[in-house]
C-alpha cells in the first residue's frame, strides 16, 4: 500500500497510509475507535474506492482488478452478517455455493468446521435465533468453506467467551501455518500479541508505527507500570494529583481490587511522588511494585504521544 487515503467530504478517514504485508503473515491493525481501521479494510476489500494512493493486493491492482482480488480473499466483518431465513448449516452451505465450492466439498468442510469450532449444538438452529457469539462463529466458519489467500478479520472475537476465543485464535494460527495470510484488527491487545507477527498502529487515519509486538513493547515500553494499593482503599484526590504529574502517561484504577496502575517512563520519579502525595493526603501505601510493560501500555503510549504531537490531526 502506498499513500492510500480516503476522504468523506472534508473528513479524512484514512490519511496516506503505507505498509506491506508478507505472505503467511498475521498483520495486526490496531487503533482507537474511529481511527480508520474498518475504512482501510473496506478499501482493501474493494468495497470503497480510495480517494488517492495505490495498493496492490495479492499481485492485483486495487483500482483495476477488484474482482480478481475478491476471488482470492475472505472477509469477516465487524458487523453481523447472516442470512436470516436459514439454519446455520444451510446458511454455510449456501455461502459455499455462492463461492462455487462443489457440493461434496461443502459438505465435508461444513462437517469439519462445525466440529472444529464447537458449533454442534446450534448447527440446526435458524441464524435469526443465534446469540451474538454464535453468529460470530458462524461468520468465521463459513469463510473457511472457500479457498482464499488472504483473510481480513475485523474484530472477529467480539462477544466470544475466552475458551471459544482461544479456539478461534489457534485455528487461525493453524491456517497461517498452512499458508494463509491474515489482516487482523482487534481491540483486545493480548490477542494481537498472541497472534500477530507485526502490528501497525493507526491513529486519526495515520499510521503511527509498524513493528513486531516485541519491538513495539521494547521501543515504546521504556514506560513501565507502577502498581500500588492504598490501605484506605481508593482516593480520588490522589488519583487526580498523580494523573497530572508530568511523568505519568496514564493512571487507571481497578475499583474492585483497589489497585492503581500508573504507566510511566520514569518510575524512579513517580514512586517518590506517590509516597509524597499519599503522605500529604494522610494515606498509607500498603503495597507497590513495578510491572513489565504490556502491549497495551505501548499502544496507549504511542497513541497518546501521537495525539499530543498534533491533537488537531494536522501534520
Amino acid at each position, binding site marked *: 500500500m502506498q499513500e492510500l487515503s480516503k476522504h468523506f467530504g472534508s473528513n479524512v478517514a484514512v490519511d496516506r497510509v503505507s505498509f506491506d504485508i508478507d505472505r503467511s503473515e498475521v498483520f495486526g491493525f490496531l487503533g482507537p475507535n474511529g481511527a480508520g481501521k474498518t475504512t482501510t479494510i473496506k478499501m482493501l476489500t474493494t468495497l470503497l474506492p480510495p480517494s488517492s494512493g495505490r495498493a496492490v493486493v495479492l499481485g492485483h491492482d486495487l483500482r483495476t482488478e477488484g474482482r480478481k482480488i*475478491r476471488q482470492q480473499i475472505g472477509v469477516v466483518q465487524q458487523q453481523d452478517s447472516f442470512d436470516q431465513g*436459514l439454519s446455520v448449516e444451510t446458511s454455510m452451505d*449456501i455461502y459455499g455455493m455462492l463461492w462455487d465450492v462443489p457440493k461434496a466439498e461443502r459438505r465435508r468442510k461444513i462437517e469439519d468446521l462445525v466440529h472444529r469450532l464447537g458449533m454442534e449444538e446450534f448447527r440446526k438452529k435458524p441464524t435469526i435465533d443465534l446469540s451474538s457469539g454464535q453468529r460470530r462463529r458462524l461468520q468465521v466458519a463459513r469463510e473457511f468453506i472457500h479457498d482464499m489467500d488472504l483473510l481480513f478479520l475485523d474484530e472477529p472475537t467480539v462477544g466470544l467467551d475466552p475458551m471459544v476465543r482461544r479456539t478461534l485464535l489457534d485455528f487461525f494460527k493453524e491456517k497461517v501455518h498452512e499458508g494463509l495470510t491474515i489482516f487482523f484488527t482487534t481491540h483486545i491487545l493480548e490477542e494481537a500479541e498472541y497472534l500477530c507477527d507485526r502490528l501497525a498502529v493507526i491513529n486519526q487515519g495515520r499510521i503511527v508505527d509498524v513493528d513486531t509486538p516485541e519491538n513495539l513493547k521494547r521501543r515504546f515500553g521504556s514506560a513501565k507500570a507502577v502498581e500500588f494499593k492504598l490501605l484506605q482503599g481508593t482516593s480520588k484526590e490522589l488519583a487526580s494529583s498523580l494523573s497530572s504529574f508530568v511523568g505519568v502517561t496514564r493512571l487507571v484504577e481497578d475499583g474492585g481490587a483497589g489497585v492503581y496502575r500508573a504507566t510511566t517512563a520514569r518510575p524512579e520519579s513517580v514512586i517518590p511522588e506517590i509516597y509524597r502525595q499519599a503522605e500529604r493526603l494522610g494515606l498509607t501505601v500498603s503495597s507497590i511494585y513495578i510491572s513489565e510493560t504490556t502491549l497495551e501500555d505501548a499502544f496507549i503510549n504511542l497513541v497518546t504521544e501521537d495525539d499530543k504531537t498534533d491533537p488537531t490531526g494536522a501534520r
Partner: protein
Amino acid sequence: MNSYLRLVYRNLRANLDRASLFFELIFPLFFIFVQGFGINGIVPPFDIGNGTFVSYSLFLAAGAVTLTVINGGTNAGTQLWFDRKNGMFEQILMGPFTRAQYILSIILATLIIGVAGSLLVFVFAYPVVGARFVFTLGGGLLIAAALFLGTVFFGAFAIALSVALKSSETFQVVSTFAFFVFLFTSTVFFPASSAPAAIRTVSMLNPLTYTTDIFRAGLFGSATALTSIELAVLAVEAAGMFIVAVLAFRRIRV
C-alpha cells in the same frame, strides 16, 4: 454454476418469507372470487377492445393476476432491505461478484417470483378466466411480455425506493402506499374510459395500466393497434425505472 444463477438461488432461498408469499397469492384470489363475483351481478358485460365483451368477474380476474406482478416487485425491495439490515449486502460485494451482478440477481429473482406467482394465480383463477381463454402464440407472447416488463418496472421501483428510504419500516409503509396508488389508478379494477378525467390521465402514466391491458389483450384475444403502443410505453417505462434503480443502487453507502 454461473454467478447470476448462484446469486438468484441464494436470493430465493435466503430472503423469501414464505408466509408473505402465501398472502401475496391469497390477495388476488380474494379479489377474483369475492369482489369479482360480488360486483358481477350489477355490472353488465362491456367492451375491452376489438369488440371483445367480457363480464366484470372476467375483467377483474385478469387484472388480479397482474396484481401479483406488483406484489412480486415489492419482494425486490425487501430482498435488498434484508441484505442491508443483516450485513449480507456488503458481505456479497466483498465476494466474487460485481454490483451489477448483485442488482440483476435481485431483479431476476423478482421475475421468477412475479411470473411464477402470476401463473399460480392464473391456475387457481382458471375456473373463472378459463371460460374465455384460448391460447394463441401471439396472445402467449403478449402475456409473457406484460409479466416480464411489469415485474422489471415494479422490481426496479422497489429497489430505488428501498435505497432512498432510511429504514425497513418506512420502506414497508411507503411501498404499500405507493403500490395502492398504482393499483387504484390503473385498469386492474375498472376500465380507464369509465374513470374521471384526472384519474384517466394518471392512469395513462401508470405502468400497471399497460401491464394489465396487455395481459388482458393476450388472454382474451382483444389486441388492437393500441396494444403495440402500450407495449412500447411499458418497455420504455421499465427500462427507465431500471436505469433509475441502477443509479440509486450505485449511491448506496457501505
